[in-house]
């Protein structure tokens, strides 16, 4: 294996390149990314960038010198337009041809668009640093922001916007925000803290259309016919895998690139990061396998998830009390504790539960214990 091509120059592409070099790969390592920037962190886009605490220069994932040390053939600002698996070449949009022995696909996801929303001034999505800066510059006292979709991005932005005294309406088609992932009790609790801070939350409401005045958005129209006036609209209704450039490649693209537990989707082709749809069944994960981690800041409350939550069979409060604003909730699949969610809990109380998830503790035992020793 002399030539590796990584497509996508963000968190997953970068860490894969680093892992290859660390394991001693000294061949040619090409990285192709359509954004102009060196790899940057997206999590702060809906947090420190929107509040104004950080400028975009804080987002870099590595200092320049670390990127240089990887000795990459780094091609930024150019998209990969196609792949020829028979010839083992990638075609960047600049017309060149790049051969590979191993191809690593790390193209991530993009926001699911709202039909007809593109090109209307004041309609935003949040994925890139340009998106975040554009939205930040529109958040001001008394302005009206309607957010379509109350997932993690929508709710984080709602909280920041309220802090900047924006009039915020969050529109969600499900009966309860976040419930599908974190369960009803935790979803209800987080909804409550947003309402307390003055976010107007409409649930069970589907948006039918956007209203415009000239070329700018002026409001959002739910299916029930009312009008929600808006100066700005954020579309945060989930994401789509960036696999369009692989059309015709014969790779299996369902809800992302389908690959096995070793990230392999075809001979010589691997998918990593958000674009990958690993055929990984948490129920037969290995003991002591790394525990996935996710966090979100919901108003001042830090919410952390260790392990697997979506698709859980049961959930139960294992420690603390949601009524007090601090709780640790456990989630099961099969007979095991597969994930925990910590809401506003001191870390000392979370540590042992993280180990309990890694050890795949029996659910019955976890749910009946006051706290693990």
């Amino acid at each position: 294996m002399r030539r590796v091509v990584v497509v996508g120059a963000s968190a997953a592409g970068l860490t894969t390149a680093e892992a290859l070099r660390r394991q001693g790969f000294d061949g040619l390592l090409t990285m192709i990314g359509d954004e102009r920037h060196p790899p940057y962190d997206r999590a702060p886009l809906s947090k420190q960038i929107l509040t104004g605490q950080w400028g975009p220069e804080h987002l870099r994932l590595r200092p320049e010198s670390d990127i240089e040390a990887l000795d990459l053939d780094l091609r930024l600002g150019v998209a990969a337009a196609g792949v020829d698996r028979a010839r083992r070449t990638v075609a960047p949009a600049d017309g060149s041809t790049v051969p590979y022995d191993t191809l690593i696909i790390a193209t991530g996801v993009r926001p699911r668009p709202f039909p007809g929303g593109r090109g209307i001034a004041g309609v935003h999505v949040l994925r890139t640093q340009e998106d975040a800066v554009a939205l930040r510059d529109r958040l001001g006292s008394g302005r009206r922001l309607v957010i379509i979709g109350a997932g993690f991005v929508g709710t984080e932005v709602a909280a920041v916007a309220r802090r900047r005294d924006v009039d915020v309406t969050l529109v969600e088609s499900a009966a309860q925000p976040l419930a599908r992932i974190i369960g009803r009790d935790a979803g209800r609790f987080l909804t409550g803290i947003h309402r307390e801070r003055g976010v107007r939350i409409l649930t069970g409401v589907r948006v039918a259309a956007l209203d415009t005045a000239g070329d700018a958005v002026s409001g959002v129209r739910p299916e029930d016919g009312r009008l929600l006036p808006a100066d700005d609209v954020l579309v945060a209704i989930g994401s789509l895998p960036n696999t369009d450039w692989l059309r015709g490649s014969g790779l299996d693209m369902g809800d992302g690139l389908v690959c096995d537990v070793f990230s392999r989707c075809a001979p010589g082709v691997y998918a990593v990061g958000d674009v990958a749809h690993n055929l990984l069944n948490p129920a037969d994960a290995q003991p002591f396998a790394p525990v996935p981690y996710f966090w979100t800041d919901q108003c001042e409350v830090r919410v952390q998830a260790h392990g697997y939550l979506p698709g859980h069979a049961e959930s139960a409060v294992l420690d603390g009390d949601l009524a007090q604003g601090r709780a640790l909730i456990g989630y099961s699949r099969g007979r095991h504790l597969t994930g925990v969610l910590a809401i506003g809990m001191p870390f000392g109380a979370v540590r042992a539960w993280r180990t309990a998830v890694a050890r795949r503790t029996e659910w019955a035992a976890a749910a009946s214990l006051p706290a693990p020793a």
Partner: protein
Amino acid sequence: MKVHIDEHRCVAGGQCVLVAPDVFDQREEDGIVVLLDDSPASDKAGELQEAVVVCPAAAIRLDQA
């Protein structure tokens, strides 16, 4: 080898502690990273590079020297 951490970036998930428990720990109250050893022996290099990679916040830096 020198290890640097940036507490302001740290998001307190503790991925670093899972890979290099002799070098990193977390504060009891908020889980922010604590450096137990800022110049670990060179046999720790592998673990430390792994910690840099798994840190979701780019809060860990290594100075190879």
